[in-house]
């Protein structure tokens, strides 16, 4: 009896360890170690990236001689305080596009969990047969980097000195900036009601803006209150226009009689730098068949932009804002280096879209 209990405990422990190995994908990893198929090669590499085993993932590349290891790691780990530095690869999907005996193309969708919500990255990856195994051919990043130089930047910067707590009553203060809601359009969406529109800073100083809305029912009672949260460029320079979007989940238009809009503005220290150019904007269908507005962002300044945030307002033929969508860009904006972006556009709305306006917001480690 003395021996039975330890043996029983040992057996239970062994069973649990085996179960844990199975559930953690141990079998799949072991099967994939051989990478007998293109999908296995990609899956193995991405599993190793997910587990932060970058050496092993890098070893799965067929063109290691052309790909810098640190650059490869930075593609998943991020750099310069970009969004990927605050994220982790949560999971991924892989499916084949076309295949031959020696080469295959796989499409992967990487699901990142980031500080601002989920982020998807879709890539087409070539896989090549090398002996008995398949290896991933990783595209070489040929992005040009600006040579070392000094870029003089002399855009305005605004600082604010407010009235002190010790100042006597009646001593002059600086007024909050004048902002105005240019338009508001309420749209019924399958998952709720959405308010979209634009707001302008009419003042000659920068403003930190937030737009809120209160829905009133037929009896004049408040039924919901929301704000634009991050669906707006909060810091608006003088005469700058920003789209905004306010979502009311699980709300029906029939319940709403009135909407009370509220644009709040505060004086904010701000800089007119950096200027970000948005090139090659077009509405197109992405590889997954979804409508997107894509383009390139180019940082015209000399300072790295850590986390770019793109907000787009779409207009119909009457110039009415019919939708606002936004998206964070995973890569940082290095000076003068174009970075692609794409933001979703619902298919049912895209057919009414005649034009659009893109605003780029940015968040930096030093300032935002």
């Amino acid at each position, binding site marked *: 009896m003395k021996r039975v209990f330890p043996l029983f405990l040992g057996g239970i422990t062994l069973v649990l360890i085996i179960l844990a190995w199975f559930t953690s994908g141990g079998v799949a990893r072991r099967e994939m170690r051989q990478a007998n198929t293109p999908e296995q090669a990609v899956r193995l590499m991405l599993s190793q990236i997910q587990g932060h085993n970058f050496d092993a993932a890098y070893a799965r590349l067929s063109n290691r001689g052309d790909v810098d290891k640190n650059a490869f790691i930075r593609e998943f780990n991020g750099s310069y305080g970009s969004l990927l530095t605050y994220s982790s690869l949560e999971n991924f999907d892989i499916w084949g596009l076309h295949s031959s005996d020696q080469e295959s193309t796989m499409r992967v969708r990487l699901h990142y969990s980031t500080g601002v919500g989920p982020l998807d990255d879709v890539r087409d990856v070539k896989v090549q047969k090398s002996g008995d195994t398949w290896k991933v051919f990783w595209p070489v990043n040929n992005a040009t980097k600006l040579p070392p130089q000094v870029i003089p930047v*002399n*855009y*305005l910067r*605004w600082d604010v000195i407010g009235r002190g707590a010790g100042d006597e*009553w*009646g001593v*002059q*203060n*600086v*007024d909050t900036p004048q902002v105005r809601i*240019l338009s508001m359009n309420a749209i019924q969406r399958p998952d709720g009601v959405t308010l979209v529109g634009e707001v*302008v800073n*009419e*003042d*000659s*100083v*920068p403003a930190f803006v937030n737009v809120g809305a209160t829905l009133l029912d037929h009896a004049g009672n408040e039924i919901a209150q929301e704000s634009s949260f991050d669906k707006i460029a909060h810091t608006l*320079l*003088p*005469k*700058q*226009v920003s789209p905004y979007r306010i979502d009311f989940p699980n709300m029906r238009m029939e319940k709403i009689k009135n909407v009370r809009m509220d644009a709040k503005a505060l004086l904010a220290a701000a800089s*007119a730098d950096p*200027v*970000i*150019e*948005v*090139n*090659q*904007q*077009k509405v197109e269908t992405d590889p997954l068949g979804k409508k997107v507005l894509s*383009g390139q962002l180019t940082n*015209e300044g000399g300072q790295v932009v850590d986390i770019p945030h793109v907000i787009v307002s779409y207009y119909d033929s009457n110039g009415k804002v019919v939708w606002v969508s936004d998206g964070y860009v995973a890569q940082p904006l290095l000076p003068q280096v174009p970075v692609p972006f794409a933001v979703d556009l619902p298919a049912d709305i895209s057919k009414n879209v005649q034009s*659009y*306006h*893109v*605003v780029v917001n940015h968040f930096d480690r030093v300032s935002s």
Partner: protein
Amino acid sequence: MRAVIIAAMMCFSGVSAVASEIHAPAQVTAGTAITIRTSGSGDATFYLVGPASASKTKVQAGSNIPIDSDQLEDAGRYVAALCASDGCTAANFFVKPAAANKLSFLVHPSRVPVGTPQGITAVAIVHDSFRNIVLQPSPVTFSIMAKNEKSVSAARTSENGVAWVRLTSAKKGGPTRLGAAIGHADEIRVVQQVAADACNLRIKASRAKRGFLVETEPVHDCGGNPVPDGTVVSFTESDAAGKTTVDVPIKRGVAKIEMPIDGSAKITVASGVVTGNELEVTGGQ
């Protein structure tokens, strides 16, 4: 608490056997020392309850009680009460504000577009030296001191302690000093008169290294005032490669940006809700 004390004192005064009496002046000017006469005899306690203070002193009934000027700085109703062994007696008196000598000067807004009718409001609240609002009509002199121009002034009489003027902002941008004066007080505020919306916004394009350099002509409002640096001008260019937009802040009076252009392109410009001219350019020409 103050109401309770006053009520208690009034109650005492009602039940007193008129042995002790207290005589206060009916009206006193703030910051003036007074003497309160009392009658009776023996040890007593003197209470003085004002709008912002209360004090308690041991006195001799029948003597004159001096009240220092610093005890009577707050305008309003005061209750003086004398409590002796034979009961309490009380008297009310009012302290009125002293002569107008201070101002709270409120000017709104701190920034105003040029040529805004009645766009500036200047309000002066008249106080005496002890920050009591002077309700009696008092003359307040408002003055406007625009840069490089002669000062203009106008007198307004305060009503219930407040005097105000509404002003139309000047046609020319820049800081303007607004003043209000009464007694020894002379308060100054500065209002920034800023250019209104851009007017007749025009752009031109010239060939550059990366495509075309697109720049505005010096941006002015309709009154010819330069729109302040930092104001955003939005350039939009449409060509075969798609659309390019960029928000550029005005720098030294103009906004400019280099734009890549593929084939024929249309360039438009806007600042806030104001749109400008449209250019058609062709790359490679």
